[in-house]
């Protein structure tokens, strides 16, 4: 069901970083078109 769905993953340094979100979603079949980690302070 997730196959072919496109995802933008925005992570946070003190929470879940972008690459971790991307890896999980790729494993579930999503296509991660962009991932980034941000620092909100």
């Amino acid at each position: 069901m997730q196959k072919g769905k496109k995802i933008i993953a925005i992570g946070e340094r003190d929470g879940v970083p972008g690459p971790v979100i991307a890896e999980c979603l790729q494993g579930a079949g999503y296509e991660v078109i962009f991932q980034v980690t941000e620092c909100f302070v």
Partner: protein
Amino acid sequence: MTQESIKPVRVGIEGIFYSLSHVPDLVRYGSKPLRELRANPALATELAQRLRDFSAATAYAPHQVYIGSIAPEKLRDLPKPWYEKLIEGATAQGRFGDIVNEDKFYALLAGADQFDLVSFDDKWFQAHAPGDLIGRAPRLRSLNEIQSVCDKGALPLCSGAQLVGAFEPAHAEDASLAAEVLLENLAAKATAAHSLRLALKQLALKPDDIDFVISCSEEAVGDRYNRGGGNLAKAIAEDVGCGNASGSDVKAFCAGPMYAMVHGASLIQAGVARKIAVVAGGSLAKLGMKFESHLRKKMPVLEDVLGSFAVVLSAAKPNQVCLRLDSAAFHPVRAGASPQAMAEFLVEKPLARLGMKLTNVDRYGVELHNPEITIPSGSGDVARTNYLTLAALAVMRGEIQKHQMEDFVRARGMLGYAPTQGHIPSAIVYLGHAMEALQSSAIRNALLIAKGSLFLGRMTQLSDGCSFLVDRNEV
């Protein structure tokens, strides 16, 4: 390994001085306001209405904690919102810090300028400049001349609604020497130099006593061929009159000050230098970083101060507060970027190396961002998140029970009180209070932990971090 079997490696911390420069009329030159005001000039009126005056910034409880007038543990008992419940009788001089008003900041800026970048309206400057001018005499002009250079591209410097000065670019085509960049750099130099001057005065030291200065400010000094080339440290040393000193910079995003402390302590331990100043100036780019959220919430724009500090390090003396060089820990590349990995490598492993558990640390200094600034913008309570991560780690290690996490946070943590100046909140802000608590034996030790967001520079996906223990040299 037990604590008793460890031979500690200590370097003395002689003292620290913190300063805040209250610069409401420079908020518009923070990176975020500058962009937003260019896109929507009408915002300027709303922003001006939400700027604080100096007395409100002075009586703001987090600032009183920052300069050492209120213990951080007391902050949780003070009524909120802190920006409304101001501290009665608050003064701008604390036990180990001060708050500088904008007029004095302008004078510091002019005094630190060797290239006639900044000039002031003659009449205004004579009427407002403080008596204790330091450094080079400012370049003074008529108001008409100031207006004229601003029309040609200089940044207007204001006091409220009044134009009082101008800041000029140093090169028409070099973006690294644009007025905005140079103002940022010179503000870092001037504020760091101010903190170092006051640190030396407090410790009854002469500038010539310092033989090396390390700057961990967050600017990028250099021209287009050397953007970020640096050594602001040496410029600061010169400004303060440290004629015997050289210097260099240590950069690591917000973790810079912690690395700078470890570098400085290592130079002393190795015998390369005898007395080192670790300094940082304020980050002008971060002024008003969350101003839109503050405007939406009808609260004052709280990011209106430049933070700075100066620490003096030397060989350890008996009973002195010391940096435990044998506790210094870094976040290795292989650790990954999760907060849990960060806690493991910056807390669990270095403590284990010293034969200590998490519960053997009396106080943790983490990233102590003021939650009143960050929560309205949706960034959460950074300090609390960090303390809960530590408490969770203590649960995982079986040192406390899950229901004791709040007690752990309360006993070993504190509320954040630092302005969102990046390198300033990152643990180093707690050192002054830690030193007082150690000297009075209120605590036996404190672990300072800072993180750095390396990924912001787009050179790596990694985060970073550095930690060390401070305790008293009881011999």
